[in-house]
């Protein structure tokens, strides 16, 4: 999937993956896509919930080895 920006949040513990995601999102325009790489397992449920509460859209997610990948479209 094509992303406008890639955020590397690997090795970061909660709450940092979401803190960084939020920051990165602020720099995007509505409709653009952010790709996030994280290793904190808690990010899975939290990013999904945050995306919803923030009015964004979780387009897709994948697990490659121990890296969790997310694609979020800015609302």
């Amino acid at each position, binding site marked *: 999937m094509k992303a406008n920006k890639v955020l590397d949040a690997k090795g970061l513990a909660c*709450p940092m993956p*979401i803190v960084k995601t*939020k920051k990165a999102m602020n720099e995007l325009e509505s409709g653009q896509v952010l790709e996030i790489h994280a290793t904190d397992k808690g990010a899975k*449920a*939290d990013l999904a919930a*945050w995306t919803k*509460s923030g009015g964004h859209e979780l387009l897709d997610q994948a697990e490659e080895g121990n890296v969790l990948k997310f694609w979020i479209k800015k609302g």
Partner: protein
Amino acid sequence: MSVHVMTAKEVARKVIQKESFFILDVRNEDAFQDWKVEGDNIQHLNVPYFDLLDGVEEILPQLPQDKEIVVVCAKEGSSIMVADMLSEAGLTVSYLQGGMKAWSEYLEPVKAGDLKDGGELYQFVRIGKGCLSYMVVSNGEAAIIDATRMTDVYLDFAREKGLKITHVFDTHLHADHISGGRAIAETTGAVYWLPPKDAEEVTFSYEPLEEGKGVTIGRTTLAIQPLYSPGHTVGSTSFIVDDAYLLSGDILFIDSIGRPDLAGLAQDWIGDLRETLYKRFKELSNDLIVLPAHFMIIEELNEDGSVSEKLGTLFEKNHGLNIEDEVEFRELVTGNLPPQPNAYQEIRQTNMGKIAPDEEQQREMEIGPNRCAVR
């Protein structure tokens, strides 16, 4: 104002003493709904930390002025962040050290009773997850029953009391938590006992736990009598200790009874469950003190934090022991089952020795409540 650290042990003491305090749980809503720190006088507010990144002002009116506030999250990172923000806003708050992970792993040792030969029986209350394990102590020796994977707690406890652990038992193959039994036996050289009918697929050697085989702990004769009591699993075995205590495993709890479906054969085992509860246990002395392997709700805790009740009282008050109609009983134990525990299949595989997840994976597998009972 300031931020304090609160340990799981301190929170456990508060819950046991029924102290009144306030929990701001900053995990996502699903995690909070699934499982939280519970207590008689705890007030909760759940606001996910990711809704507080821009500031905590909006929730300030919802926080009490006159109660201790503890911020809780999954591992502690987010609760520290939120606690810092609240502190900057002028509040004095604490956060739960290690988060729900630490809460899930904390064991509170409580003395459950004395034995006739001067020995003692301890109950280890895993208050966050509702698991109960036991140590029978007599004349410098100890037996452990239904140990959790936090094996250091038992090993340290035995070391402090100068005890040699000689026998380790699991009443059944657990589906809700990872057993520490095998690891303790390996560390201490103790004998590890499992009911053979639950152990058909295990990858390690064990001593078959069968009715009629008494075990002696210490130099005096402390008999641990196995009592075959199938129904939760096909091998489930209870113990009568010192003719006074009935360690009922996951068959009979204080306010609920075991569920028959976690090993996959609900329909087959309903009859076993009923026979165990309504016939085998009925023939036992009403004066036996029932010590189960779980509690489900915090109301089941006694004043000192222990979980126990006389068998006679359970036959009077436990709804699951008082259903005359077999069809109605069948409906209770199969028709209305709570969700299965998190990762219960993987937990069973781990307890059989088929897979060997690392500590972090084991932690993740055990997240959430135990859910081994039906009410």
